[in-house]
């Protein structure tokens, strides 16, 4: 049965995935969709449309909500075959990664029907409104207010570190709906259309230069009351669920399959003597990193295999987030060190690769801050896994 399915997938991908969509991609090649979508090429548009028609932008969602209706095994086969052929993901989407799972679990039938299909078809681009200027690690301290007035909620306040808010159509937000309640108990999960005069998004410039992050300001913004997801003042549980998805996404960033290996990069920069990196001290630290990286990748593989075999997921997302982001930072430190003077050039004569490297190095410092800092992950491990008071 599954073999037949695999052959069908192979044939369909071979016939429908344009050749240029089977080449390695850069950040500029990412398709995000939305009301005013931009495509790096006609092929990218065609590829997205063909996948969306089959529901394969979201293979495991039910067909009635725009998904492919595939079983987990079938979806795995689709992923494997796409990987084998080198197919690019047709769509990147916070709607798919974050909001979709929340709506499928907590949304009303009407919410699922109205919001999920446009996500699957890439018609609406979503932003995530979580952090605030005074609510970072202490997310539950958030102060953005939503007051019920008639059939609407009126929203006032601001959000920060909102990725791509300036290019998004809608935003899912954590808002305070009961200022009197204990802080976790007065929070709700609200969906808000960003195309309205009361909402303004401004980009944030980082140490690495331009960034997708924005600050978002709400001044008497409105959304209909039926856009509340889950119970009123019941948003915190949803928020925690969603953060788990986000942690997993961040912990698996890093090496893309086609990327040059770190040891090859360092060999090029430092030179080799008798088949060994010329700098023995650096070589020892590179070897330690290589080992830790391999150990981490294998641990991800082990966890995935055990979950497939029916073991309940371990409390691993915090461990993976912590270890993965710290490893990624260490990698960029090694690359900068290996690059020497070349790594110092911000603009002017440097090679494009070096100019990109120092920006990526700076950007990697955010890995252990976004999606819950390393310190917060350690708190979670200490309390929830180790049971420390």
């Amino acid at each position: 049965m599954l073999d037949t399915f695999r052959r069908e997938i192979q044939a369909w991908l071979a016939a429908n995935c344009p050749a240029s969509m089977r080449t390695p991609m850069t950040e500029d090649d990412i398709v995000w969709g939305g009301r005013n979508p931009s495509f790096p090429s006609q092929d990218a548009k065609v590829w997205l449309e063909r996948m969306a028609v089959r529901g394969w932008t979201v293979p495991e969602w039910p067909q009635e909500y725009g998904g492919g209706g595939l079983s987990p095994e079938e979806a795995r086969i689709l992923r494997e075959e796409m990987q084998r052929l080198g197919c690019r993901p047709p769509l990147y989407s916070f709607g798919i990664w974050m909001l979709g799972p929340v709506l499928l679990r907590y949304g009303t039938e009407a919410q699922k029907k109205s919001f999920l299909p446009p996500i699957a078809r890439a018609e609406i681009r979503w932003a995530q409104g979580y952090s605030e200027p005074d609510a970072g690690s202490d997310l539950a301290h958030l102060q953005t207010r939503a007051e019920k007035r008639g059939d609407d909620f009126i929203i006032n306040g601001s959000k920060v570190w909102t990725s791509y808010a300036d290019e998004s159509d809608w935003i899912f937000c954590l808002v305070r709906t009961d200022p009197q309640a204990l802080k976790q108990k007065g929070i709700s999960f609200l969906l808000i259309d960003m195309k309205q005069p009361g909402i303004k998004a401004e980009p944030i410039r980082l140490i690495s230069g331009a960034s997708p992050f924005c600050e978002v300001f709400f001044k008497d913004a409105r959304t209909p009351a039926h856009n509340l997801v889950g119970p009123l003042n019941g948003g915190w549980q949803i928020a925690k669920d969603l953060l788990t998805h986000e942690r997993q996404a961040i912990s698996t960033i890093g090496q893309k399959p086609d990327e040059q290996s770190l040891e090859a990069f360092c060999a090029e920069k430092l030179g080799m003597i008798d088949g060994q990196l010329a700098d023995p001290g650096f070589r020892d630290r590179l070897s330690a990193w290589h080992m830790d990286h391999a150990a981490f990748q294998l641990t991800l593989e082990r966890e995935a295999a055990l979950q497939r075999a029916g073991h309940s997921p371990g409390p691993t997302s915090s461990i993976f987030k912590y270890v993965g982001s710290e490893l990624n930072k260490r990698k960029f430190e090694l690359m900068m060190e290996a690059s020497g003077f070349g790594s110092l050039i911000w603009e002017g004569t440097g090679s494009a690769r070096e100019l990109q490297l120092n920006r990526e190095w700076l950007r990697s410092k955010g890995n252990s801050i976004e999606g819950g800092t390393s310190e917060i992950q350690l708190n979670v491990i200490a309390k929830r896994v180790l049971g420390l008071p």
Partner: protein
Amino acid sequence: MQWEWSDEEKMLRTAAEDFFRKKVPVNFLREVRSDPNRYPDLIRELWQDMANMGWSGILIPEAYGGLAFGFRGLGMIMEAAGHTLAPTPLLASVACAGSLIETIGLDSQKQEMLPALAEGRTLLTVAHEEGDRFGSKSCKARATPEREGYKLQGEKTMVIDGTLVDGFLVLANLPTGDQAWFLVARRDDGLELKPFQLLDGRPACKLSLRDVRVPAQSRLGGEAADGTAQDLLLDSASACLSAEMFGAAREAFQMTLAYLKQRVQFGVPIGSFQALQHRMAQMYSELELCQTVVQRALTALDQRDPQRSAWASLAKAKTAEVFQHVAREAIQLHGGIGMTDEHPIGFFLKRARINTEWYGSPAFHRDRYARLHGF
């Protein structure tokens, strides 16, 4: 890669954990320490119980009376032994000597030695080191062919379980420049043992060979030009030591965790302090990685994976670093009580030091790993 443990493996794990907790608690090391001369008798008695469960033959093919359960099985037992730091001949006699004989021995040699090892009647060890750290000096011991057999001369050091065994596999140079292993019986003339006691109370010894004469058939693998299999020896010893270190590190961690929940200062359990919580959470994350790499290295040995040396070096370097870190932190977090001889935690620090030096330090293995990965 098979990440799930089979039902048989899980049963073995339970049996091993049970056995060591009941029969060989950490205090067993105190008995050993108080009278090193009793060590052989104590261990041989223990070994009979383990042999009855088949563990002496865990690696040995069924044709020679073994269980053929592989390194995953052996690793499981060693991990369980690590929980209580149980001294056993598993490393020297099973992981090292036994697997050497099985890999490079002639059929006749296997027939002669493997069934006796599997039944637990015979204990062997390997004698290869001559310098003051693993691999620091090349082999100087000599084997000179004579009319009947060989004459062995040389000095060996850090012979694990040397005071306990019936015989030694001794590495020596031939006049041709090749190396070979020779089986030397404990009672052979010219063989002198110089015992010493290790940090954690276990005995080991140096070996002096003065014109020890052995018959031709004592040369492991016969006249084969390269019968040393030194990479295999290093890989299997490293993977098995890693399993033991992982078990011991996890135990030291659990003891410390329990202590942090129970010890009250300033009116609260000290485990409520974030400065300590973060250190525990970091160690826990590292232990998760250790569990993975130990399982990977053991499986690679069973599968004769071409990458097995790299996996073994990864496991050895990583678990040694983590075990040492956990053991040092365990003492610090236990505070004053951790410095007392009465408390078991000190034995973990001592074992960490020993296992780190045996079969290559972390730096040794990072070098080997880098070489295997071409940088």
